[in-house]
């Protein structure tokens, strides 16, 4: 018996398929900003410390080669800021005028020198910019504070331990040992065993 072909259903479904795709494309909004760098790249950059400028290093660069950017809030900026600095708070970096400005800096190969209350604050903004592809951004490693209501900039020693932790601990222990006549009984804690299970993020397996 000859197979009878019905085309009504296929026509209808094909038209529906086309409609769905069209609607999906029309409603689709292309993301405005896309990260250029993946996390590997940013991690590499973070680890080779090229992105940190001290005040002295900044002085050695020609004035026309960089633009200082204050990433604190407008309020803080109006209280006092580094000379010639412009104000773009971290929150407003993705505003298009500000992006244009960074684009300009990038084209003219000028360095965007970011600073905030401390390097840590500038770091967020720097990481954002770097991941968006602005390799010309750098962090000015300074602290800003107010002494007698005057704006002060001072160098900041990054990630420097305040004290030698190990030594302090040792010292404290020897002191406590001295203070005690009796030997300190050391309650041995049972080792805490924690199993971290991988988050269920199963890679799809195949099969046929």
């Amino acid at each position: 018996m000859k197979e009878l072909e019905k085309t009504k259903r296929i026509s209808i479904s094909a038209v529906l398929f086309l409609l769905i795709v069209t609607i999906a494309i029309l409603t689709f909004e292309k993301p405005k900003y896309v990260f250029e760098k993946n996390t590997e790249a940013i991690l590499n950059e973070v680890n080779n410390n090229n992105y940190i400028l001290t005040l002295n290093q900044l002085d050695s660069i020609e004035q026309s080669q960089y633009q200082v950017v204050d990433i604190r809030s407008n309020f803080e900026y109006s209280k006092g800021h580094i000379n010639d600095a412009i104000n773009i708070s971290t929150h407003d970096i993705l505003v298009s005028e500000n992006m244009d400005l960074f684009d300009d800096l990038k084209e003219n190969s000028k360095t965007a020198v970011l600073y905030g209350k401390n390097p840590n604050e500038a770091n967020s903004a720097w990481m954002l910019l770097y991941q968006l592809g602005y390799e010309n951004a750098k962090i000015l490693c300074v602290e800003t504070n107010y002494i007698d209501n005057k704006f002060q900039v001072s160098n900041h020693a990054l990630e420097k331990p305040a004290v030698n932790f190990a030594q302090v601990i040792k010292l404290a222990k020897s002191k406590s040992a001295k203070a005690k006549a009796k030997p300190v009984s050391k309650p041995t804690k049972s080792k805490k065993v924690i199993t971290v299970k991988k988050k269920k993020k199963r890679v799809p397996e195949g099969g046929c």
Partner: protein
Amino acid sequence: MGPLIPNGIIPEDWNYIIAILIGFAFGYILEASGFSSSRKLAGQFYGYDFAVLKVFFTSAVVAVIGLYYMDYLNFLDISMLFVQPTYLWAAIIGGMIMGVGFLAGGFCPGTSLCAVAIGKIDGIVFTIGLVIGIFIFSESFSALEPLFESSNLGNITLVDTLGVSPYWIIFIFTIIALIAFVFSDWVRSKVKKVFY
């Protein structure tokens, strides 16, 4: 953002229920398209029925276009999908053995299950044959292992192999499919009708 289960959006526990539902739809579509009939399946090799080729190509084209649109529209991460690893010689030789088996038996595993479900005895026998074939393979695995494990190219796609944008591949693939449809209809009009 898909795929939903590997990304943990749908809990893993649902996996098997979804498997049954998907299998259900798969079986229904295969049977309703006539894949439970071995003579219909074999028809494409003799030019009297091209249903298999049409279903096969249509579904592949629709699926690949749909998947890439979903990827484009950010519903799905195409790199998360499972890609069958390519073992070049294993695929070629295995495919050739399957080709002979297809002609002799008239089914492939999916369709033979459909045939079993509607009571085709040849389908049942074919399925028993499948089990025996798998058993033979497993028992003689040590002899076949060099072939099985050789020339592993990894989980590659045509994009890696040809170095062309996937969109062009899809476009060309679609054109090939359309030509195949036209050609199959032409062949069918030339070949003597077989009623089954």
